[in-house]
């Protein structure tokens, strides 16, 4: 009996060792792919860092109104963010190529599904970027317009518009990524509706001020004895 137990253990040990041996080429291929991708990533980031530094990318990003990007970036440098993003992307691609050296059927399906999802990711990134730009532009337009109309709640209006557009862009991006589904739609509807309601209340309550001033102006025209001096600009 002990011989049989020993033989069974020896056979399972042999199978395990042969399985591990069969994995060895894949592991070597994976390590080689990672090393090559690391080298490629290093070369690409060096080139990219020189190019972005030469065009003063950090200052241009701040001037274009993306100062928040600098806040999020490591060492507050969008150049560093961009180079690191490129490096990790190259490493990821190398990793995917490396794991395809294992079970070809399983990993190739995984890689195919990942690459099929990539356009959705890109579309979501584009939607978010466009939404951010539009939100910033509209918020600034509303802020300047409200200040020029002497509205005390100009900042609130501007923030409301910015969040409105941002929430819309995020919801559209999540829709592209097929994340959340019904829950996201419901949350978006509640949030969007809430922001619109808040803005409507702010405008409605705040316009009392405008109406009051307008009525005062009309009243002062008819009842006041003092004449206003004419003002001309050109």
């Amino acid at each position, binding site marked *: 009996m002990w011989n049989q137990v020993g033989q069974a253990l020896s056979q399972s040990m042999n199978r395990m060792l042969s399985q591990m041996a069969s994995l060895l080429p894949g592991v070597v291929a994976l390590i080689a792919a990672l090393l090559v991708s690391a080298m490629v990533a290093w070369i690409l980031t060096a080139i990219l860092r020189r190019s972005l530094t030469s065009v003063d990318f950090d*200052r241009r990003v701040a*001037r274009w*109104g993306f100062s928040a990007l600098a806040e999020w970036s490591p060492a507050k440098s969008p150049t560093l963010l961009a180079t690191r993003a490129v490096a990790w992307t190259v490493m990821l691609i190398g990793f995917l190529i490396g794991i395809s050296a294992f079970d070809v059927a399983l990993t190739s399906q995984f890689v195919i599904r990942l690459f099929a999802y990539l356009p959705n990711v890109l579309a979501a990134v584009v939607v978010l970027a466009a939404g951010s730009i539009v939100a910033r*532009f509209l918020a*600034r*337009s509303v*802020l*300047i*317009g*409200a*200040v*020029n*109309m*002497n509205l*005390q709640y*100009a*900042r609130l209006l501007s923030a409301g518009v910015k969040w409105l557009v941002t929430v819309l862009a995020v919801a559209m991006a999540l829709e592209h990524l097929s994340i959340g589904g019904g829950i996201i739609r419901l949350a978006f509807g509640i949030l969007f509706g809430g922001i619109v309601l808040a803005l409507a209340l702010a405008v409605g309550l705040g316009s009392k001020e405008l109406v009051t001033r307008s009525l005062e102006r009309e009243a002062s025209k008819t009842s006041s004895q*003092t*004449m*206003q*001096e*004419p*003002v*001309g*600009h*050109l």
Partner: protein
Amino acid sequence: MDMGAVPQPELERIEQAGGADLVVGILDADHGAAGAAVAMVRTALTELSKVARVVVLCNNGAQGPLAAAPETESGRAPAVFAYDLASAPAQTPQAGMVGAYRSVFTVGEKLRVRACAVIASHLQGVTPQWIYRLLQPVLDLDFDLVAPRYTRHRMEGLLNRSVLAPLHRALYGLQLQNPAGPDFGLSGKLLQRALGMDSGSLRRHEREPLTSIAPTAAVGGFRVCESHLGARSQPPTDWMNLSSLLAMILGPVFSEMEGQAAYWQRIRESHAVPGFGLPEAAAEEGGTMDVHRMVESFRLGDQNLQDVWGLILPPMTLMELRRLSRLPPEQFRMTDDLWVRIVYDFALGHRLRTISRDHLLRSITPLYLGWIASYALEMETAGPPQIEARMERLARAYEAGKPYLVSRWRWPDRFNP
């Protein structure tokens, strides 16, 4: 729309008859006043010599066929051909006015006129003397540009006083009260030059006749003078649309600066231009000026637009504005140096497109209101001589601050706020 004002057969008839000596554009005539405008031109022509044929273009917005005034049968009085400037539908009033200017200039250039006069002020205050004074220096004294000089009250011409006139003086070296007209007298040579520069480095829609005529004359070395025209009636200020007015006027001014940068950077000092006509005394002023609302607008801008102004103005200027906003209204005074630096920094921001140009121009509104408030408080009891002296000090401040502008213009990165 350029040549649509005069039908081709009519144009050919005038050309065959030897062209025209003058083109007069009356840009503020409503349909009923077009006849009165033409009569005013005829009256003015009686004092001008060697004028045989005149084309009058009235911008009364009439659509459809043009109406030509009958040619006079007298051999002595000039022949007057009057036409309507039909504007394209759905144009804004500003775009319509710009189109009208271009139409008048184009007709004048095509007919190879000796002189062109444009009257864009409200006809209510215009007299035949205006047309005479805008044309006579061109016809008899060989001037190329006759700029207007109006009799103004204390609170009239504020944008001219605060920005247009002193900026033009500092940049182009000519001391004009109203470099942006709107009423002008031009020679045929200047007309051709102005139309030729429309296809230059600046895109056509960035050049507007109102703001480009005087710089074109200065850059081209044309002879420039001023004529006293008297008081000008102006529409009441629409305070709700002040930012649109500022954007409409300052945008082309800053664009013109960009186009003429190579010239104005070499100008070191300014000089006065010859003046014609006698200045009229301004009627006695009445009424008060409520500056509190303007100070409040300035404070609101300072509280809410720091992020926007911070992209255009250096930290030192922002600090001064913050200090100014904390002063009580009675002590509210914006120094000339501060205002000059603000204007120059906005001009630079416009050139560098630091932010959207429309946003940039509209965000200057609270600062402009602050200047008006400061000026109104300072000049509350001042008479015309004190006001003129005050404006002279402001103009000198613009000239003194020009090295700052030139430095920032040439090396914007070095002075990046």
